């Protein structure tokens, strides 16, 4: 609140209503964190220790920056940006859950340094910096930080292979632009190659009873090569749906994005069947495009980030559809996990989307209102 607003408070009509529903921002953040904690728990069961370390590293790096900012502001006696660690905790958890783990079968090593770097940038530049400079966040902090880091790493990877050592082979370890994904070597469009990719990347064995899971099954229940937030994508789906309802996230984005992706994957599965039946191909396409961690977690917990997404209802639908289409396009071009780029692009377009169509106000509808 500005000094002027504080001074204006004695004005008689200023403070109405005099009651509040009693649900505040911190509560919203803490409940969001709680929801993601359930997902994190499921992911650690599926992915094991690497997922846990990523989560701790992400939370630790974000909280370290938060503590530094908080201590500095207290020392200087200036207004605190965060009145509780609730919002940084959410940011930290999103960073953790949008990081990728590659199962031991694929020989990948989790790039904890990248996670730490993304955590620091999320909190310092995209959360605190953006908020302070613009008084609003235009880009989803975790998405912005991750996209920035990966673009830089992408450049480094191609400019000088030697730099890879710096990250301990991290770039081969499962980030979106690492060498087995790039330069767009994955042919996700060709149905037969798509199936090969699926089997190579997702076929796995359950640690209990040695049960072998097909790629489609593991994409629904047990992804060991994925974003951490989508390791048990069925859990992410259920928890996400509960969170959207309970915490009133922008559900139109979720519904339109989810349904669009579903339609796109069904359509492509029906058109490009390769050596498989329509049913086999459609189920594999849906499993991959909709239930892969980079989509299922993003759609519930990143695409609904309130500040960087549109307000009017129609714009939210447009945002959701565009996000699905862009993500799908990136996936087909081999930029697996490109949902983060799609999200950043649409975040930037949000101020324009806000102005596309607004509802007519009561008294201006020009028809029977009910």
């Amino acid at each position: 609140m500005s000094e002027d607003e504080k001074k204006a408070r004695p004005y008689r009509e200023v403070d109405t209503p005099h009651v509040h529903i009693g649900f505040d921002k911190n509560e919203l953040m803490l409940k969001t964190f709680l929801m993601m904690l359930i997902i994190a728990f499921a992911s650690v069961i599926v992915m094991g220790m690497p997922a846990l370390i990523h989560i701790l590293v992400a939370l630790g790096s974000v909280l370290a920056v938060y503590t530094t900012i908080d201590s500095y502001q207290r020392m200087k006696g200036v207004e605190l940006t965060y009145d509780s660690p609730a919002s940084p905790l959410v940011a930290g958890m999103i960073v953790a859950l949008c990081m990728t783990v590659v199962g031991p079968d694929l020989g990948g090593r989790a790039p904890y340094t990248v996670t730490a770097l993304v955590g620091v940038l999320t909190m310092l530049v995209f959360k605190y910096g953006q908020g302070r400079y613009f008084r609003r966040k235009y880009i989803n902090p975790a998405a912005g930080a991750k996209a920035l880091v990966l673009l830089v790493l992408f450049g480094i990877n191609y400019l000088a292979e030697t730099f890879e050592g710096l990250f301990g082979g991290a770039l081969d370890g499962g980030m979106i632009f690492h060498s087995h994904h790039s330069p767009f070597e994955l042919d996700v469009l060709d149905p037969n190659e798509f199936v090969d990719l699926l089997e190579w990347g997702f076929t796995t064995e359950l640690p209990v009873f040695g049960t072998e899971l097909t790629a489609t099954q593991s994409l629904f229940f047990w992804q060991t090569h994925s974003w951490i937030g989508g390791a048990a994508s069925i859990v992410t789906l259920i928890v996400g749906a509960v969170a959207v309802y309970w915490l009133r996230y922008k559900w139109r984005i979720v519904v339109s994005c989810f349904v669009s992706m579903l339609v796109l994957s069904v359509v492509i599965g029906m058109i490009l069947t390769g050596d498989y039946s329509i049913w086999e191909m459609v189920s594999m396409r849906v499993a991959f495009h909709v239930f892969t961690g980079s989509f299922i977690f993003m759609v519930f917990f990143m695409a609904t980030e309130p500040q960087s997404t549109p307000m009017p209802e129609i714009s939210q639908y447009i945002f959701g559809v565009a996000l699905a289409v862009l993500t799908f396009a990136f996936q087909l071009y081999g930029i697996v996990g490109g949902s983060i780029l799609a999200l950043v692009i649409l975040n930037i377009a949000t101020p324009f989307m806000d102005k596309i169509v607004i509802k007519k106000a009561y008294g201006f509808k020009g028809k029977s209102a009910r």
Partner: protein
Amino acid sequence: MAKNDKMRKDRIQKKFKEEGGFEIDLDIKIKAIDDEFSEVPPADEMRVPLRQQVGSAGDPIVEEGQQVKYGQKLSEDEDDALTVPVHSPVNGTVKEVMRYENPLSGAPEPTVIIETKDEEREPYYDPMDPDKVSRDEMIERVRETGIVGQGGAVFPTHAKLKDAKDRVSHLIINAKESDPNVACDARLMIEEPEVMVDGIKLMAAMIGADNVIFATRTTEGEMPKLEKILKREGIEIARIRPNYSVGYGRLLVTEVLGKEVPDDKNPTDVGALVQNVLTAYAVSKAIRDGEPLIDRGLTYYSKDVGGKNLWVRQGTPVSKVFEFLGESPGKYERVILGSVMRGTWISDPSIPIIKAHQGIIAYKEEEPHPYEDQTWCIRCGYCNDVCPVDIYPNLIIEAQDIGDTDWLQKLNPGACIDCGLCAYVCPSHINFRPKMKKAKSETSKSKLKQI
């Protein structure tokens, strides 16, 4: 507990349900409904503002030192269609005619200070026989007795009746009682249903409406006596959604008749007149008993005392109400007059109760203050979802902050009805009122709307 009371309690709505799935707790209302009306005696010194309605104040027609009778006119301006006379609430002596803080505007406005002689209530006007007078004479009586809308909007009732006469097909009685801290309408529906229904019939006769609809949030069997009388008189009961915002006159027309009231029109232009249920009571008293509108029912609430239904004369200082209840205003940090959603916060307990006040609510310092922890907008969109008139409060504030006047105009802040729901749900505790007020003044050509 009487059988009827038990039935009512079982059926009562516990919450208002707003757009977007938000809820308003009705705890105060539910607790207060069972409290019978008590009459607050007049104070030794009554402060009667000469403007207690929308529109301007009448000219004072009494002078210092003059003896006045209960119900005698203190002001008049017959030329202004929106001015109604104000009457003396006691037998007494005019001590002073001065400018004093008006509870409607917060600014000093003409006020008559009266030293109370006694509490007698002798009706000032002669009773009227509705069968022997014309409709215009009855409407004139409504004006002469200073009746204004009792739902809080205080629009002069005679002006609405005149506007509606022979023009509307529907008289909608607003028995919604939306304010969550108020139960006086519901209490009066239990205590005085005959008088209330009589007032409804009189108003229907004045305007010549063929259809009378009693719009209520109550469920069947909650008010058995009233329901029986309404049935007997052939008045239709419309059971409307238990929403706070639906009680706003224009939205009520939509709720009941399914017709939108265009922004530049009044409900009468779409064939409906909306009157509050307490107004109906006042109309019956004015016509049948010759009683001007001098007092009104209101609900007091504080945590210590609970909900109390009181009958209070206009001009009674708020401190007198506290005294009557054995309370001390000094205990409270915030005293709100009227609705907890829209009312004014007074700092001085000598401010008088007027025709607009359907409630008093007192909060101690330790009770949560909605705007203490204001922070930045997180763009959650709750305010947009809950807004009953489909505008975007948060986009309005953003447009205002960046000075985008074209965009602000398109967002139509003028449609805001000041319901307060946006601030009520905002998790960042943003105080919309001053911002919306500014946005409205920047964009709309001000026009007094009838509600």
